[in-house]
């Protein structure tokens, strides 16, 4: 009796998870993923989300990352996103804040870490 119910709940949780896993994704344009490549100009390794600014060819982007505890768990240490590193951030541009994007994942020195 319980198994179909559990399966249904699990499906719902997984389906909803993408959209609801973290607040704030609603104000990002998920239909147009972008990749921001460049050198890290500033790095704030702070809660509730770490943020970096990245000098891309077109402009300087503010890239919102994840809570620091999650980043540490996944190996994205303070050093990995330190000033001067070259980063590639895949994610979505904000529909509210100018020149801000939220990273789905970042790659530094060949290492990729998921941000959600």
């Amino acid at each position, binding site marked *: 009796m319980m198994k179909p119910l559990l399966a249904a709940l699990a499906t719902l949780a997984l389906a909803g998870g993408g959209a609801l896993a973290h*607040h*704030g994704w*609603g104000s990002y344009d998920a239909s147009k993923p972008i990749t921001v490549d460049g050198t890290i100009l500033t790095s704030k*390794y*702070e*809660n*509730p989300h770490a943020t970096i600014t990245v000098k891309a060819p077109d402009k300087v982007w503010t890239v919102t990352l994840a*809570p*620091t*505890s999650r980043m*540490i768990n996944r190996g994205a240490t303070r050093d990995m996103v330190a000033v001067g590193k070259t980063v590639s951030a895949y994610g979505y541009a904000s529909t509210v804040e100018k020149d801000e994007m939220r990273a789905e994942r970042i790659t530094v020195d060949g290492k990729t870490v998921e941000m959600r």
Partner: protein
Amino acid sequence: MSDAAPAIFVALEGTALAATIRQSPYAYMAANVAHILSLMIFFGAVAVMDLRLVGFFQSTWPGSLLRRTRLIAILGFIGLVLSGSMLFLAEASHVILNQVFQIKLLLIALALANIAWFEKSVAPRVRDLQPHTPLPVRARLIGMTSIVIWLTVAACGRLIAYF
């Protein structure tokens, strides 16, 4: 840091304590967990009190039930204020400008005024009432108001992140 905020909140966000909360991997997370646990303790007690005022649990002595649940509610409220202050401090200059947060503060003030009204005008009259005795109409009104306001406060709290 938002320069649009009144200087006091920019200064609060600039304190060493605020920086510590942001920079520690655990402090912000711990404050978040403490806030929701405090909320459960607080609203659990508040719901029992308010439902008694509205007309549930009529077989209990209102005075004794209110006295015990009041203590739990106060403890929960202290936890809410402490953990909420940590969350606020970390981003004070942004959060203070958040309209949902402003509504939340206003509603908390209203809910506390509702409690003050109850403690002053109703609590002394129901303290010694026996079970199954009808409470003053005002008690029912205050209980319903309290439940509605506190639930709205909780909803506002969760919504701060989305506006």
